[in-house]
């Protein structure tokens, strides 16, 4: 039962990581100067109102108490109320997270679909013109600030050639997001761009690694055609670690979602977070970071587990 053991151990690690995240996030947001009261209540608020607000929000208690209260609420699934959106944080997140997941998953999928064959072909044609060109493209994609890239996409595909809307679907429900597929194109493309670069580079070098391995030589020695070596042997071996890589990329994808949602006015977690940051909406900030970190931790956990399921070696090696 090594896989079970491995799973349990990874799970325990994940719990520890999440705990550390809660402490870090809590300290980060609460040890900073200034408070939300004035910002939330505005210039007109009286000192009494500010004191009342702080009291009502528990902001006048010692930090440890606040943390204990917060954790206690967390365990009950209560992430508090948004200061500015007049809704519970959990309802806000429940509403937005699926949309962000749709966006990131579509981007990741597109990234993989483009990057895997690209990297493989680059490795096969190493140091030829096509390899250099693809390398240049991936480098540029990697090096372009996402907000710049997204804006270029908007200017080109939405303003100059008015093909696609510059606004992501605005609907409340997931169904309404899919009801407007054209509006999803630019956000997903923008989100996928850096992933194409990262996965493509990874795939290329992983495939190069594998091409130099002994088993490729064995396959050659038994007369396997090169195309088949690529598709049957190298592809699988070099793409499998990509699953773990995918796990590592989750924070990057969420970071991307932050920018993409902001650019395309897509009402997901990123936008929620962005707005919360503008209005010092601490409960929302805390909640979002927490959920995103948990999603990240869970994602890399899943990636690792998926990897051990797919790669027969790790089943035995990881014990």
């Amino acid at each position, binding site marked *: 039962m090594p896989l079970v053991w491995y799973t349990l151990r990874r799970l325990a690690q994940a719990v520890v990581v999440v705990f550390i995240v809660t402490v870090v996030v809590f300290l980060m947001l609460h040890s900073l100067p200034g408070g939300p009261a004035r910002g939330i209540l505005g210039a007109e608020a009286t000192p009494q109102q500010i004191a009342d607000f702080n009291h009502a929000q528990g902001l006048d208690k010692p930090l440890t108490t606040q943390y204990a209260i917060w954790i206690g609420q967390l365990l009950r699934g209560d992430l508090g109320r948004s200061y500015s959106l007049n809704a519970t944080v959990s309802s806000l997140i429940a509403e937005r997270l699926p949309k962000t997941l749709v966006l990131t998953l579509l981007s990741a999928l597109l990234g993989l679909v483009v990057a895997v064959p690209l990297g493989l072909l680059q490795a096969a044609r190493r140091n030829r013109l096509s390899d250099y060109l693809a390398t240049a493209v991936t480098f540029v994609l990697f*090096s372009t600030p996402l907000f710049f890239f997204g804006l270029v996409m908007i200017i080109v595909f939405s303003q100059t050639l008015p093909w696609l809307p510059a606004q992501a679907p605005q609907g409340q429900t997931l169904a309404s997001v899919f009801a407007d597929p054209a509006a999803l194109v630019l956000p997903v493309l923008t989100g996928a761009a850096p992933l194409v670069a990262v996965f493509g580079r990874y795939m290329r070098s992983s495939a190069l690694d594998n091409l130099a391995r002994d088993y490729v030589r064995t396959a050659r020695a038994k007369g396997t055609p090169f195309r088949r070596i690529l598709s049957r042997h190298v592809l699988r071996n070099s793409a499998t670690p990509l699953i773990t890589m995918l796990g590592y990329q989750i924070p990057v994808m969420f970071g991307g979602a932050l920018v993409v949602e902001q650019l395309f006015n897509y009402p997901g977690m990123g936008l929620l977070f962005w707005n919360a940051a503008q209005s010092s909406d601490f409960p929302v900030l805390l909640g979002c970071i927490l959920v995103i970190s948990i999603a990240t931790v869970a994602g890399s956990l899943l990636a690792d587990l998926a990897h051990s399921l797919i790669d027969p070696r790790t089943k035995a090696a990881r014990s």
Partner: protein
Amino acid sequence: MSTVVESQFEPRALVAPSPGRVMLRRFLRNRVAIAGAVVIILAVVFSFAGPLLWHTDQTHTDLTAANLAPSARHPLGTDAVGFDELGRLMVGGRTSLLIGLSAGILATVIGTVWGSVAGYAGGWVEAVMMRIVDAGIAIPALFILLVIAAIAQPNTAGLVLILGLVSWLVPSRLMRAETLSLKHSDYIQTLRAIGGSHARAIVHHIVPNSVSTIVVAVTFQIADSILLVAYVSYLGLGVKSPDTDWGGMLSQGLSQAYNGRWWLIVPAGLVIILVVCAFNAIGDGLRDSFEVGGRR
């Protein structure tokens, strides 16, 4: 008999050229990496020596000369408060390069120390240290930066510190992996067996032997930091006028994206992409010449 055998076989000593030389040669043959190095050198010369040739007032605004299109007097036009855009690119380049470089180095230094200690210590110390790294990685850097932006406006040193603190995690993982493999190498085992201290093992052996990993990490980290500086400006944490950085110029320019003032966007965007590409290309080249792991 042994002497006979020796004279007959030992001359075939495998005399390899020094590793540094091999590396340099490989690096020099990597045309992409060389192009990268040239771009960096040009960028540094442009930013630091440029103002000696192209004199512009980068401290006083001039609203009467705001938003001018490129002309002989202002080859790249002027911005919304009348600064000469070409001169501004130079000023901005200094900040971007300095912050990127310092933050990249800081992140790598922290990561190196953390990763080597964790990897070497093993056991629960390693477990705790690496869980902290995992936790750090689980919170996307952009989110942290945005929260910070919502709270305060750091100065340049603060910015370096913040960027360093959000980006040391990846180098620390690399360094830990490197340490783990070195830790079991025969010479560390030998050193330990004859009573050498842990500090000696880390300082005299593990870190020097990870130099290639560290150098590659630093290069990628600088690329990332320069990019991150751009993001930071976009998120509203950038340096203050009259100082500027490329990211700040770009994000200020973006607000003018539609009124045809391309000169406020294109040059700044291009230099960022070029320089980040260049550092990545160098990192790639170094990695190939060192044949170490690190970012693919």
